[in-house]
């Protein structure tokens, strides 16, 4: 009797829950129906669907903290353009904020900013693609929207990270190719010459280990280590061959020669295992960095920085990227920000004015920007300005000449190569494995990540 009662109570409760569930599901379907159709016409004059334009609408611009100066300069030069500046983390350190937020706006069907600065250089890989049937976020820039003269004014290869299937989806803010930094004062004092090849570099490391232990010639503790060393060795770890296809071969001779160099110099303790941004690194190596291959932004971030190595003026110098034997010199690249225009923007004219200004004008790129400008004419003036400041000794032509040496066999996929290296290689090396022994593990991790990111792996 009791059982019967309770059972009928249960079944009527179940019925109520089911009814509620059904109505909620129906609501869900209705909501989903609302999100489609964002009010943009299907065809635009510049190769992407345009929203209805209004020349008086306010530009919403997302930038990181460092780039606020660029917007201040723009507002001063263009008081007639209404700009709403929103600061965000610039998608730095793999936070992926840019993509995350745009996807939420895609889901909502509104709310996209007009212009976005990203401190990463792989955002074109997703921003150029339609996702789940939603219009691609990035506007195509090189089919009439941005002037050809502007596009062609960038340093050779500078727009590679922005280019997918021949279409340019962003403008590069700054370049970040690797060069060889060295401490000329120390090198002269020890009687060593500046290496020009990786073989010379390895010999230098051997000599330093034997004659001046405690000094280092580089660092392998950062997540961007593969971009400094493996990329410069033409290791085919990241060869993006089409918008959604990648070739990965991490056991080639090119990869092995660099891995064994890193193993040799790591064992001799002339390569730091600590990240250059850690307190350990500063404790151990302040005043002890003899040479260091690394991106051009090392100059301000590591050497000429009171909170980092703080090398006094007049000691550091810059040499061209190292090459293997008689090979052509190529180099890697670590970052370099990008500017995107939203394909959903209702004021494309003003957006164009803005990205033109922040990437090409001397007022910002030469006078204010902290990094090497990607726009060639601004870059030359920026380097001249650095030269005049007298921090570096010797001439800085290596910075300008290396800008176009970035090897194009290493691509810019949607996933982060740095994250894979940090997860699979760095902890293993810290616990005693060699780079050579980790090459195939590293390659497998890249292939796995590429696959789940929707790439066809070859």
């Amino acid at each position, binding site marked *: 009797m*009791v059982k019967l*009662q309770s059972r009928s109570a249960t079944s009527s409760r179940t019925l109520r829950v089911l009814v*509620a*569930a059904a109505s*909620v*599901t129906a609501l*869900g*379907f209705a909501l*989903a129906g609302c999100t489609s159709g964002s009010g943009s016409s299907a065809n635009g004059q510049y190769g992407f669907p345009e929203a209805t334009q209004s020349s008086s609408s306010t530009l919403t611009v997302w930038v990181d903290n460092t780039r606020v100066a660029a917007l201040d300069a723009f507002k001063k030069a263009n008081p007639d353009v209404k700009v709403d500046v929103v600061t965000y983390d610039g998608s730095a*350190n*793999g*936070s*992926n904020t840019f*993509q*995350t937020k745009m*996807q939420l706006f*895609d*889901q909502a069907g509104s709310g996209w900013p007009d212009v976005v600065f990203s401190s990463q250089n792989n955002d074109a890989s*997703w921003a150029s693609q339609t*996702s*789940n*049937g939603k219009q691609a976020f990035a506007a195509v820039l090189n089919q009439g929207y941005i002037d050809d003269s502007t596009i062609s004014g960038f340093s050779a290869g500078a727009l590679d990270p922005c280019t997918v299937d021949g279409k340019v989806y962003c403008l590069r803010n700054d370049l970040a190719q690797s060069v060889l930094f060295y401490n000329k004062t120390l090198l002269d004092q020890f009687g060593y010459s500046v290496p020009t090849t990786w073989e010379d570099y390895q010999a230098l490391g051997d000599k330093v280990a034997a004659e001046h232990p405690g000094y280092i010639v580089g660092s392998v*503790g*950062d*997540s961007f280590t593969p971009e400094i060393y493996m990329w410069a060795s033409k290791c085919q770890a990241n060869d993006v061959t089409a918008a959604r296809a990648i070739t990965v071969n991490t056991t080639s001779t090119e990869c092995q020669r660099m891995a064994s160099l890193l193993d040799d110099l790591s064992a001799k303790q002339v390569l730091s*295992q*600590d*990240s250059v941004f*850690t*307190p*350990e690194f500063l*404790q151990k190596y302040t005043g002890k960095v003899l040479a260091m291959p690394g991106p051009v932004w090392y100059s301000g971030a590591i050497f000429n920085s009171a909170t980092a190595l703080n090398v006094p003026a007049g000691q550091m110098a810059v040499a061209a990227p190292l090459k293997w034997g008689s090979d052509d010199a190529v180099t890697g690249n670590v970052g370099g920000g990008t500017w995107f225009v939203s394909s959903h923007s209702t004021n494309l004219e003003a957006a164009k004015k803005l990205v033109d200004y922040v990437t090409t004008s001397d007022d910002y790129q030469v006078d204010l920007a902290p990094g090497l400008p990607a726009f060639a004419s601004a870059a030359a003036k920026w380097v001249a300005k650095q030269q005049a400041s007298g921090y570096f000794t010797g001439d800085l032509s290596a910075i300008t000449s290396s800008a176009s040496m970035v090897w194009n066999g290493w691509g810019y996929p*949607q*996933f*982060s190569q*740095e*994250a894979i*290296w*940090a*997860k699979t290689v*760095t*902890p293993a090396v*810290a*616990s005693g494995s060699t780079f050579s022994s980790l090459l195939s593990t590293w390659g497998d991790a890249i292939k*796995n990540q590429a*696959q*789940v*990111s*929707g790439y066809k792996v070859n």
Partner: protein
Amino acid sequence: MTLAPSRATRSAVGSETSRGRQPGGRRSTSTTAQSRMGAAFVSAYGLLLLIFGIVPAIYALWLSVTGPDGSFVGVDNFVQVFGDYRFIPAVLHVGLFLVVWIVALLVFVVLLALVVHAVSVRWLSTAARFVFYIPGALAGASSVLLWLFVLNPAASPVSGLLNALGFESFVQTIAPGNLPGVFAVIAFWTGAGGWIVIMYGALNNISAEIMEAARIDGANPVQIAVHIQLPMLRKWISYMGVLSLAAGTQLFVEPQLLSQASNGIVGNDYSVNQLAYLYAFQQSNFHGSAAISIILLLIALVLSAVFVARGGLFEKD
């Protein structure tokens, strides 16, 4: 355990029969008024549960069985998620963390609560509870930030201890094998204090007569703890287990922050919840993300059911 079901049945039967015996009596009216009041109190909670718990869960269920175009795809999303090379490792990571953490929580919280309760010096007992509780005042993210410094031999106030354990650098401290322990320590440190205070309250609730009777019968403090206090704490312990399981399976903040702070040495796909986040916001696959969430929900429900059943959480005293 053998007693639990029969006692449950007994009380259920008892209440039914007593209700049946006194129709329209004074007691029955007050019960009706009480139950009306009860319903009023519960309704506010019920509404919030519906809006923020049940509706999103149903939405997730719907997403998990449909494709990007809204069509029904059956278990395709689940198959995709199970086939993901990151899924099984993430499940193992969370499983290992849960084992280490829940066991530590069950053992140490109960032990510490018993010890604090047994301390007869009033100020000492109060001070101990206060000290245990303080770390709980730090919210999840800020406690992780604090631990980032504690775990880094270059900055840690206990760097001597870390070095003695063989950790010379931050990268070595957060080696993959240490992570379940690291996360368990962080979670224990922030969460245990609150539970100790709750257990202490529960211990206070045990009637003084029972304790006195035991003492007169010659039971020592250990015997009292094992035969009287522990059995009477059973519900509270399982309550702690249920809530901790629900929180633990959703491990997210700790590995996510550690991933950022270590520049990716701890992967951003360490836990199942992080994987769901990656699916939604990096792969723009909301359907796969929903599938992972549903799996998590099921696992948490099943594990909680075990605790509820074994702990007699819904039994009446």
